[in-house]
């Protein structure tokens, strides 16, 4: 069922290893980094909004 004879064959990709893994690597990298950046953005935004909210409530209380 599996097309490859050995792991080394799989990595070599019939001589196209650089191109195939260059493509898959870039895609994997972007798909890993994008959610991390989005999540960090979200965390920062929430922290900032919370700070603002706290400052606002303090101002109205005084």
């Amino acid at each position, binding site marked *: *069922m*599996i*097309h*490859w004879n050995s792991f080394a064959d*799989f990595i070599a*990709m*019939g*001589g*196209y290893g650089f*191109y*195939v893994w*260059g*493509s*898959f690597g*870039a*895609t994997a990298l*972007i*798909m890993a980094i*994008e*959610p991390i950046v*989005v*999540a960090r*953005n*979200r965390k920062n*935004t*929430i922290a900032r*909004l*919370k700070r*603002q*909210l706290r400052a606002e409530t303090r101002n109205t209380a005084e």
Partner: protein
Amino acid sequence: MKDRFNLYRFASPATFYPLAGALIPWFVAVSVVFGLAGLWLGMLVAPTDFQQGEGYRIIFIHVPASWMSMFIYLVMAGWAAIGLAFNTRLSGMMAQALAPTGALMAFLSLWTGALWGKPMWGAWWVWDARLTSELILLFLYIGYMALTAAIDDVKRADKAGGLLLLVGVVNIPIIYFSVKWWNTLHQGSSVNLTKSSMAETMLWGMLLMAMCFWMYAIAVALMRVRTIMLERERHTDWVKAELAGGEK
């Protein structure tokens, strides 16, 4: 009448926000499942292509990335049309949340295309209509993001961005056909992009990967739209309650 009411209810950020939050893990899970199945089928099971050897396996990410880059732009334009016609708040946020993912897809499409073109045609880049249009699409994404980022007034940013998206959608086919015509005039590199008939496993692998990319794009866009919602609606009561509550 009831349907209409429901639609408006979900279009309101206060209801959409928790709904999106609940949906994200599901889209991530489905994307991972499709991705693993597609990679297994495409990278391990699918046979060697008799013309392109193993190099053709780039198709399993190149084609989904290209599809998604075009599809996301169309979806954004659809949201823009809805936003301009019905003045809904959600549509502008969705368009803005989708744009970076669409731009990344366009970039990936160009990147993988270059890595595929080098061994197959002997050139990283040819001035083919499809490649050139994809590059222009990337420029259109960047232009949209730069425009909406430069406008402080949210309503105006949505409107301006929406108009740009609609103008872009009208222009993409014009650009495509003009480049095609230009290419025949110059009789440039005679690259034949038509693919040989594909084995069934290859086709299935590609479709599974496309589903994986699609679900991934939805998940990331929903993540992004939730942040945009908090930011834009920060003066409303529901955001204040959300922030005061257990939201980490």
